[in-house]
């Protein structure tokens, strides 16, 4: 895809829905996992992960509105920290998107099975076939694989239709999610049960660490908004509003769902229902439960399928950015001339999603295995994004930032120019680092496969750069020219004027400094 082919037509609602279709579905997959792991302290686990998520969200809001291009965290890291860090972030995000495809396809078909069970009484997830000493849920596996193949087909045929589908189902899911939540509090939530579990059902420290690190997966997906930044109209005005609204609504609904879950059912009721936890919750509602449960299952199926689809869509934007910056081979940049879709990327990375699905079903807990990997990729990517935030503030203080992460210290960089050091960015960095430590400490799968994935891609990076004669060092790039082109293409004329002026002032300052030194 050439940059000109990414047309700016995403509105404020489109931008919000783009993020919501990814992060909004996370609670459908994460609620059961976190409640079983963190038990009575699940709302605390969600709140702690949510605070880290808010800081991540603020960093993304600043960076995506200042650099409205495809690539997200990988682009920020490449620009702020250099090619190697950009590639590491890119590989972590590639892991996330491929896991995203697998996890949400598995979860979506999990809700589908709950829907089938509701009407027919047959639990398809119970159909198991022995394999290497394990009992593989073969029908569920085949359903998940079929969904991924279907998404590959849809995306290779054309994205416009799938984008519209995303928005329609996204809105319906958002409404139903809110209705279930509010009616749940009004009809079935018991403060007594909630308090009892909070006081007497506390997990061990290890379990809590595991739960809170899994809770971060309920907030993964903000990256999607910045992936779509290159297609958003007037990004300096739209992105801060859509991102901040997404941060707030997801934070509040995720914690509210955790509170609702622990005030409605004992935590152990969710064991074995990790894949359809919200349906379990909806079923408890008096009178409306008979309608709400299948409706939730249907919506869970749809929104999680969309989430899997957004993984397919976002991975193509990420690889476009990576190959544009010579971090990946141009082979991944191929666009089908008939359908104008990045067919190779879709086939390759969705193919990896199929492999993850097969691997996950060969482990004792499908959802847990995928959740482990998802948490690793997300936290590693976020750690580098925080570093990129600090580096870009220091390196490029002249870039206009429509939104600034609050609480800053005024410092001077090497050239003597003043920049604002983001204190909350540093706090967020430490927070994500703690979550990454939790992931590595408590997640056996994530601890091994996550670093292996990154190292494997690093080996590819070294091979590709050496073969292309580019070397491993950061390639020289004219970021000023690129920034001007980005702002002009985004029709951000005010920012462009501010940027040109700031660049001229900085150049003048450097000239005066050099003249002073000569004298």
């Amino acid at each position, binding site marked *: 895809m050439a940059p000109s082919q990414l047309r700016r037509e995403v509105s404020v609602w489109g931008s919000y829905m783009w993020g919501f279709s990814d992060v909004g579905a996370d609670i459908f997959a994460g609620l059961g996992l976190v409640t079983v792991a963190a038990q009575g302290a699940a709302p605390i686990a969600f709140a702690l992960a949510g605070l880290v998520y808010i800081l991540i969200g603020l960093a993304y809001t600043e960076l995506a509105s200042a650099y409205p291009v495809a690539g997200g965290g990988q682009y920020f890291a490449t620009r702020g920290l250099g090619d190697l860090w950009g590639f590491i972030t890119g590989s972590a995000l590639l892991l996330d998107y491929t896991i995203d495809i697998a996890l949400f396809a598995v979860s979506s078909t999990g809700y589908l099975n709950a829907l089938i069970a509701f009407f027919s009484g047959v639990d398809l997830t119970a159909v198991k076939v022995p394999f290497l000493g394990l009992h593989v849920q073969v029908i569920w596996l085949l359903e998940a694989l079929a969904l991924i193949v279907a998404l590959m087909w849809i995306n290779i045929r054309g994205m416009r239709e799938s984008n519209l589908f995303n928005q329609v189902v996204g809105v319906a899911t958002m409404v139903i999610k809110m209705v279930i939540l*509010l009616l749940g509090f009004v009809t079935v939530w018991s403060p007594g049960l909630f308090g009892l579990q909070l006081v007497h059902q506390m997990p061990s420290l290890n379990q809590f660490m595991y739960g809170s690190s899994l809770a971060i997966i309920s907030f993964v997906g903000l990256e999607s908004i910045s992936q779509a930044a290159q297609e958003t109209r007037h990004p300096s005005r*739209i992105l801060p509003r859509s991102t901040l609204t997404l941060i*707030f609504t997801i934070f509040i609904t995720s914690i509210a769902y955790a509170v609702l879950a622990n005030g409605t059912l004992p935590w152990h009721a969710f064991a074995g229902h990790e894949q359809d936890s919200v349906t379990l919750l909806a079923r408890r509602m008096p009178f409306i439960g008979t309608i709400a449960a299948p409706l939730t299952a249907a919506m869970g199926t749809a929104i999680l399928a969309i989430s899997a689809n957004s993984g397919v869509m976002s991975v193509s934007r990420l690889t476009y950015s990576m190959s544009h910056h010579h971090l990946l081979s141009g082979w991944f940049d191929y666009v089908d001339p008939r359908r104008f879709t990045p067919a190779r990327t879709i086939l390759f990375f969705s193919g990896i999603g199929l492999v993850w699905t097969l691997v996950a079903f060969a482990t004792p807990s499908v959802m847990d295995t995928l959740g482990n990997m998802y948490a690793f990729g997300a936290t590693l990517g976020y750690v580098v994004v925080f570093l990129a935030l600090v580096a870009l503030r220091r390196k490029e203080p002249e870039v206009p930032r429509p939104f600034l992460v609050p609480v800053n210290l005024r410092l001077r960089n090497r050239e003597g120019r003043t920049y604002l050091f983001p204190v909350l960015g540093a706090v967020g960095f430490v927070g994500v680092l703690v979550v990454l430590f939790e992931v590595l400490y408590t997640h056996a799968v994530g601890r091994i496969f996550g670093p292996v994935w990154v190292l494997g891609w690093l080996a590819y990076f070294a091979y590709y750069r050496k073969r292309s004669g580019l070397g491993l060092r950061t390639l020289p790039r004219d970021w000023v020219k690129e920034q001007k082109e980005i702002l002009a293409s985004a029709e951000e004329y005010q920012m462009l004027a501010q940027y040109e002026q700031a660049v001229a002032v900085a150049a003048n300052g450097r000239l005066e400094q050099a003249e002073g030194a000569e004298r």
Partner: protein
Amino acid sequence: MSFLEEHLAGILIALAIGLLTTLNFVWMSRVPRPIPRALAEAEGRVGGSRRIVVFLDPYRPEPSAVAVAHRLAAATEAEIVLAALVRIPFTRSLSVPPAQQETIERGLLAELAEGLRSLELRPATRVVPSRQYWDGAKEFARRLGADIAVIGVGEESAFERGEVLEGLLRELPLVGCEVIIIRPRATERSREQQEAEVL
């Protein structure tokens, strides 16, 4: 226990969540309008100003021109120079300016600058002699590297003549200087007064 009593806490939580979320969506949907390109560019040009020159007729200075320059300078941290444009007739030599006249002009400028101390403004002052106002203004703006020229067209000032204003508007942009013309407010002279003058 009634339903309301039993579920009061839940109802309150539901109301709070609903209200906060609705307010959030209302805020999101009210996206500020983008600024048109021309306006953004004009803002950019003014915003990047480092030197603002105020051209005045020393005998008929227009104080509001200085006030406008002061506001612009406050917003952009630019320095202000007050320049008195003085026309030297062709019958006299440019290289030998009439000392007495220049002293008067300098005095008038210094007086004006002194009056600006209340605004905590200490502008540099210059007398710019030339054959034609616009030639002197252009050359001075070029040497100074002025980004903006504010021209105060005071009542009965030398700049009131059409050809002078036209010349200034034509020549100053050639050296990359934006021109802002400031006229006295119509309210300063009553309509009756103006009509009486015309009659």
